C-alpha cells in the first residue's frame, strides 16, 4: 500500500471522526448531567459566562442551555458519523466548533489531554482541507500533528525526570492508589513493591523521553506506536482514560508518515 501524505490525511480524518463519535456518544449517554436538574445545570453555569459581552452570552445560552446542548451533541455525533465515510471541510469545521463549545460547557475541558489532542488534530485537518491541493500546506499539517504527538510524550517525560518522587517510584504509587477505580488485591500488592515501581517509573520516563526517536524511520516508528498503544491501554485499565486511546490513535498516522522524512 502506498502511504502517501493524502492517504495519511485520510486515515487521520477517519480516526479522529471515530474519536469524536465516541466522545459525543458518551456525552449523549450522560445528558442528564447537563439537564436543568443535573449537576452541570446551565442555570448555575451561565453566571460563569457573564465575563463575555451580552450578545455573546445570548449566543452561548442559545447553544449551551438544555435541551439545545443535546442537539449540539447530536450534530457533533452526526458530523463524525458522516466523516467516517465522506470527506468535506464543512464536516471538519462542524466537529471542531462543536468540540470547542462542548469543552466550554464543561468549564474549559471535559477530559483534559484528550480534548487538547482532539483540538490539535481537528484544527490541522481543517487547514489541510481548506488548502486541498497545496501539498506544502497539507504536509505542514501532518508535521504539526506529528510534532504535537511527540511533544505530548517528550514533555511529559521531561517533567517527570525532574521529579525525585518519579525517579523513586513514589509518584507512580500515589497515582495508582488514587485511581477512580477499585484496585484488585493483586494490584494493591504490586503497588506496594518498591523495586517494581522504580522499574515501572523508569520504563515510563525512558519511553516518553525516547519518543522523538520514532521519527528515525518507519520501522522504529511502528515499534513506538505499538508501545504507545499498549501504554494507552494500560492507562484505560488504570485510570479509565479511554478517550486518550482514540485521540492519540488518530494522530499516529501523521507521525508514521513524517517518520519517513528523516529516513529519506
Amino acid at each position, binding site marked *: *500500500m*502506498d*502511504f*502517501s501524505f493524502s492517504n495519511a490525511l485520510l486515515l487521520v480524518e477517519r480516526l479522529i471522526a471515530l474519536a469524536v463519535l*465516541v466522545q459525543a*456518544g*458518551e*456525552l449523549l*449517554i450522560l445528558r442528564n*448531567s447537563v439537564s436543568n436538574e443535573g*449537576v*452541570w*445545570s446551565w442555570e448555575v453555569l451561565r*453566571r460563569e*459566562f457573564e*465575563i463575555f459581552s451580552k450578545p455573546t452570552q445570548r449566543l452561548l445560552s442559545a447553544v449551551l442551555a438544555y435541551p439545545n446542548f443535546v442537539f449540539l451533541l447530536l450534530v457533533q455525533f452526526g458530523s463524525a458519523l458522516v466523516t467516517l465515510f465522506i470527506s468535506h471541510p464543512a464536516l471538519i469545521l462542524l466537529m471542531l466548533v462543536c468540540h*470547542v463549545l462542548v*469543552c*466550554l460547557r464543561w468549564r*474549559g*475541558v*471535559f*477530559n483534559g*489531554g484528550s480534548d*487538547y489532542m482532539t*483540538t*490539535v488534530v481537528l484544527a490541522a485537518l481543517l487547514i489541510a482541507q481548506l488548502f486541498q491541493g497545496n501539498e*506544502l500546506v497539507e*504536509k*505542514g499539517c501532518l*508535521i504539526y500533528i506529528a*510534532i*504535537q504527538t*511527540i*511533544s505530548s510524550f*517528550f*514533555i*511529559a517525560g*521531561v*517533567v*517527570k525526570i525532574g*521529579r525525585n518522587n518519579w525517579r523513586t517510584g513514589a*509518584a507512580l*504509587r*500515589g*497515582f*495508582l*492508589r*488514587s485511581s*477512580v*477505580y*477499585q484496585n484488585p488485591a493483586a494490584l494493591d500488592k504490586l503497588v506496594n513493591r518498591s523495586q517494581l515501581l522504580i522499574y515501572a517509573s523508569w520504563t515510563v520516563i525512558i519511553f516518553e523521553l525516547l519518543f522523538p526517536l520514532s521519527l528515525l524511520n*518507519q520501522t522504529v516508528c511502528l515499534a513506538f506506536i505499538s508501545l504507545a498503544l499498549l501504554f494507552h491501554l494500560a492507562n*484505560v485499565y488504570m485510570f*479509565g482514560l*479511554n*478517550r486518550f486511546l482514540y485521540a492519540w490513535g488518530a494522530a499516529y498516522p501523521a507521525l508514521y508518515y513524517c517518520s*519517513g*522524512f528523516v529516513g*529519506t
Partner: protein
Amino acid sequence: MTANYIVNASTLNLVLIFALYFAAIVFLSTLRIKYVSSRKVYLFRSLFPSWRFFEDLSELPVLYHRVRKGTKDFGDWMPSLKPLERKFSSVLLNPGGNRLLAYYGLLQQVENDMQSVEDGAEHKFSNSVSYLLLERLVREQILLSCSHAEEKNAAFQFKLRSVLQGESVESGQDILVSLEHDL
C-alpha cells in the same frame, strides 16, 4: 506498507521550521505557569494544549457529606464518590468513568477557586458557581442512595478534605465545610 517521499527544498524548509517549533514548545513547557488569571483564557483552554501529564503528586480533594433527617442530629460523614469497578467495555465506551473523572475535576476546580478568594470574602464563596455545582453534586449523590420517604425534612452538609495523592484520607485536612442545605 511503504511510503513514497519526494523531499524537495521547500519540504526541507518546512521540516526545519517545525523542528524549531518543537524546540520552542519544549522550552515553553518547562516554564512553570502556576495560574491562568484570565477567566476567558481559562474557559478556552482546550485551544492551548498542555502535555505535563501526571507531573507530580498533588493534594487531591476528597468529598464527604452527612445527612440530618427531621429533628435528629447529623449522621456520620460519608464519602460522596465511590470508586468504580473496572469493565472491559470501558475501552470502547466509558461514560461512567469519565463522569467520575469530571466530578473529581470539579472538586479540583473548587479547591483552585477557594485559593483565589480574597481574605475577608470567604462568605461569598458559598454563592460561587463552583460551590453551587458542588452542592448539586452532593444532593444528587444523596438522592441516588436514599429512598423518597427519607428525603422529607432532611438536610445535608458536605466537606472537602485535602489529601496527598496515595496517602490515607486520615492524613488529610478539611479545607471546606459547607453550610447546611435542605435536601
